[in-house]
């Protein structure tokens, strides 16, 4: 098993005809993901990369039975694209777009309440269940099927961590990039709950970073809701306060946002902290051997 995406995922791509949408849709197809539809308003009734394109998410779902969406819509229109997908009742939206205004995301979150849709991102590298399905922009080849779940706020740091795991022979059940924005659709806690319930996940690697309090909320959940071991690292120990470190959510305001605070809280909650980002793989290996 795995979480969020697997062989039963029937993917539609919002913004399939754009350059990034095209490039990464092709990669997903090559990996074996079932891409059943694309959505680009004004390009309905055409085909792109051999995939039928529709004007609306609703018509794409009706015609193809798509149950998940991957979004490459530009930031000014992305929130509207997510709202459209929620309205159509799709179960999963993975939003790659970076740079969506925060107030647009506030509206998205309000609209999400009580709906069946789960949103991953925005500013996410995607979700991937190795050997089964890739919904995103991550490098497929570095992954290995297995039983360690990975959750991260970062894209490329996750690639590094995943390749550390793979080179040690530690496979992954699912890798989830929740994205680097301040208001992600799904939080660490949301995904930890899924991994805790997933029979094929034996341990979880959590990669956090400075800013916000998501890691503290994760720690709270780990201390009373997780029976599976968690290995964690939080990036940004050297980041100066008050500066936005690339990601919209990565800014230290007050002491709670600091990497040292977050790692301390996670450690107190029972997570094993990797001493450096280069030792996440080795730390996971030790934790798996001792559990």
């Amino acid at each position: 098993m795995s979480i969020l995406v697997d062989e039963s995922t029937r993917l539609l791509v919002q913004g399939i005809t754009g350059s990034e949408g095209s490039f990464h849709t092709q990669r997903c197809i090559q990996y074996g993901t079932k891409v059943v539809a694309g959505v680009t308003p004004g390009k309905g009734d055409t085909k792109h990369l051999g995939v039928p394109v529709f004007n609306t998410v609703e018509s794409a779902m009706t015609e193809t039975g798509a149950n998940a969406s991957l979004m490459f819509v530009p930031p000014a229109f992305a929130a509207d694209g997510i709202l459209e997908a929620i309205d159509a009742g799709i179960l999963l939206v993975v939003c790659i777009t970076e740079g969506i205004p925060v107030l647009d995301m506030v509206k998205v979150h309000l609209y999400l309440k009580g709906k069946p849709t789960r949103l991953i991102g925005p500013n996410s590298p995607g979700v991937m269940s190795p050997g089964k399905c890739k919904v995103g922009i991550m490098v497929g080849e570095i992954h290995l099927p297995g039983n360690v779940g990975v959750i991260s706020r970062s894209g490329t740091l996750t690639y590094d961590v995943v390749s550390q795991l793979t080179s040690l022979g530690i496979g992954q059940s699912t890798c989830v990039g929740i994205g680097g924005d301040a208001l992600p659709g799904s939080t660490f806690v949301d995904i930890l709950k899924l991994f805790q319930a997933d029979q094929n996940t034996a341990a979880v690697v959590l990669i956090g970073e400075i800013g916000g309090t998501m890691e503290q909320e994760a720690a709270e959940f780990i201390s009373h809701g997780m029976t599976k071991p968690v290995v964690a690292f939080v990036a940004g120990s050297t980041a100066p306060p008050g500066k936005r470190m690339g990601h919209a959510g990565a800014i230290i305001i007050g002491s709670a946002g600091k990497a040292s605070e977050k790692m301390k809280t996670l450690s107190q909650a029972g997570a094993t902290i990797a001493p450096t980002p280069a030792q996440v793989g080795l730390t996971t290996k030790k934790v798996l051997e001792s559990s």
Partner: protein
Amino acid sequence: MKIHEYQAKALLAQYAIPVPRGKVASTPAEARTIAAGIGGRVVVKAQVYAGGRGKAGGIKIVDGPAEAEKATSQLVGSKLVTHQTGPEGVPVSKVLVEEASDAARELYLSILIDGSGRLPVMMASEAGGMEIEEVAQSVPEKIFRSYIDPAIGFQPFQGRKLAYGMDLDGGQIAEATRLMTNLYRLFTDNDCSLAEINPLVVTAGGKLLALDAKLNFDDNALYRHKDIQELQDKEQEEPLEVQAHDWGINNYVKMDGDIGCMVNGAGLAMAVNDLIQYCGGKAANFLDIGTLNNTERVVNSFKMFIGDSRIRAVLVNIFGGMARVDVIAKGIAEAYQQMNIPFPVVIRLAGTNLEEGQRILAESGISFIQAEDFYDGARKVVEAAKGGMK
């Protein structure tokens, strides 16, 4: 994005939020004229992005036009060093000359987006005039919060709750509620990330007045607020960061070490800096090169390193995903062709189109130190910066 206090107050005034009478001045003579127009005691306030101006001598209360002129001549053209600026300080090129107000009470009012609640939250406190983080530490029970649902906007009951929380009474309740409603309108109309009035004073006459104001804006929403974008004062920003931005490198932050870093992805870039410190070195910058389709940003990154006299060695750490390793490699080769690179460069490449990238680097004949992985790269660049590797 930040703006100056005088610009923030002009925006508040547009939303019918009372601010002290005053005007901005660039010269002592202008300040004199403004002070004469106001009459009586005035406050001369240095316009800088950094906080902590009062303690740093950036705010002067003076008795009339002649003194306002003198205070302005001391401030304009100087550099103000506050606890937020670092030892080099920030340049003062303008002052705000305002009527001096008699404050009976100092309150606090702000709106920001709460990450956990995923909603705008209005915060009010009767403990104004100090930093809200301090209030949160020492007397958290004095902070009142009200979450705002954008679908219905800020409601009068919320205003009453917060106004009573600030211990206002009588006609002040309605006045404060109006002010808060207007502040919320300003916040959403302009895509603010923070709107803070601190202190919000109650004057001797019982009226509310925004004595100081700070407005920050969501960088991601600036595309729909050209008027706000134009308010940015680049002189207040770190020169290296302005330069990087002008060259298309949007995610650059100056740090205080001597190792230049070029990384793709913000999380990885932070982790690289952490690892360099773990290995005993210090990064001169955070640089997330982002996703690119051309080599220009790579070349410009090298220009940044060459223009930064502190740099003793450079680490390039790329894990290709959206960004392709071959494009990065081509950019590095171009940089070496265009410039004389005076420092050792450690390169670690992995991910999308790795083989092609390695071939390009090998064929270009440039000299660099190859790193096997992330840790190896950090270790080698620290050694190189200390002069141990060429």
